[in-house]
């Protein structure tokens, strides 16, 4: 019988220096399947910098990030992760459907089809609407729909609740819960306290 591979995201002795200011140093964490890593800290404490290090956009000034024991700069890690940042990463001149088709082409098809993904984030009737006609919250839900339609294990989310209303926040929390229950893992920053019953949430305070 095939055993399920155990996925592991590790940071070891990470530090980040910006403009001669040490944001954090000697940071260690280990994240296993089904766990959530919540980064807390005040503005400018290096939450986004840490997320961008985990994405490979930034090199840590010291330390290393490992995915399943290997360095993250190989394509297997990029096939297993998805990132939603401050910027939505959607083109406003394209329709909702066209945007998601491009995202799908750039990755691998995941758990849900585009239509199912849109239904999940309550945008089912918007598939042929230009993104510039959407509200900020709808755009955010669209960029989160990307997580559902592509194959991935690690979600890296930078303030995912920005510009979402109460129902939106509850919706994302449900999606996060489902993702963890099916063996995924999430790293996120948030000013809101997240409400995930039965999910192992690790917290790192960067302040």
């Amino acid at each position: 019988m095939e055993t399920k591979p155990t996925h592991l995201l590790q940071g070891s002795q990470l530090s980040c220096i910006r403009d001669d200011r040490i944001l954090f140093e000697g940071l260690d964490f280990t994240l296993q399947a089904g766990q959530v890593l919540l980064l807390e800290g005040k503005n400018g404490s290096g939450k986004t910098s840490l997320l961008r290090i985990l994405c490979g956009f930034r090199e840590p000034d010291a330390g290393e990030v490992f995915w399943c024991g290997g360095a993250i700069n190989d394509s297997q890690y990029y096939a297993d992760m998805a990132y939603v940042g401050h910027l939505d990463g959607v083109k406003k001149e394209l329709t909702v459907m066209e945007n998601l088709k491009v995202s799908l082409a750039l990755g691998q098809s995941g758990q849900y089809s585009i239509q199912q993904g849109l239904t999940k984030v309550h945008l089912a009737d918007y598939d042929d609407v230009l993104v510039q006609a959407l509200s900020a919250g709808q755009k955010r839900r669209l960029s989160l729909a990307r997580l559902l339609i592509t194959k991935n294990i690690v979600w890296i989310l930078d303030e995912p609740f920005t510009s979402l209303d109460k129902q939106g926040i509850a919706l994302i929390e449900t999606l996060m819960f489902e993702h963890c229950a099916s063996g995924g893992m999430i790293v996120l920053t948030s000013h809101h306290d997240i409400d995930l019953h039965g999910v192992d949430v690790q917290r790192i305070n960067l302040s």
Partner: protein
Amino acid sequence: MSLSHAFFAIIRRDLVLALRRRSEIANPLLFFILVITLFPLGIGAQPNLLQAIAPGIIWVSALLAAMLSLDSLFRSDFDDGSLEQILLSPHPASILVLGKIIAHWLVTGLPLLIVAPLLAIFLGMPTHSLGILLLTLLLGTPVLSLIGAIGVALTVGLRRGGMILSLLVLPLYVPVLIFASNAVDMASSGLPINAQINILISILFMALVLAPWPTAAALKMSIN
């Protein structure tokens, strides 16, 4: 999804975007036409002089039009975060970037080829050298997009990268300008031009193979 699927999806996406924005196509083309039509007005009715400098005028205008269009290559993707998503794709970034460059050439370079014969006749260029002019533009303008992409990728993260971009890219455009306009010049006088065309072909293939990598690497640096 396969790499070729991703590659064509990027080209398709950029073409659709260009069609919906339109000014991206119109700006360089309009610039190209305007500059060339202004020359005869400035120089006056001297057919021999115009005919002699026509290859130079057309090529310099094409080069400046290409420079003008460069910034649009990665700007909007950089601003709205799409670039991050492209670079996070498991597919090689250099191939996806090549897709973007090809789409950019189709939108900004190809229209120049279409109007160039008309403008060449307007400048009094002999009709037997029109084919050579088109050939040099066909070989040369993709090189302008490919080399330019490296420069834009390096400067897209800067607030005012325009000046640096010109300084970076223009010297690298010079060989294309020299060989292309020289080829058209020689063809007008009925001389053989195999050497120039071969050099342009080799420059094109070298740029095609070598430019996407530094472009992808520079983009990764820029989004840092």
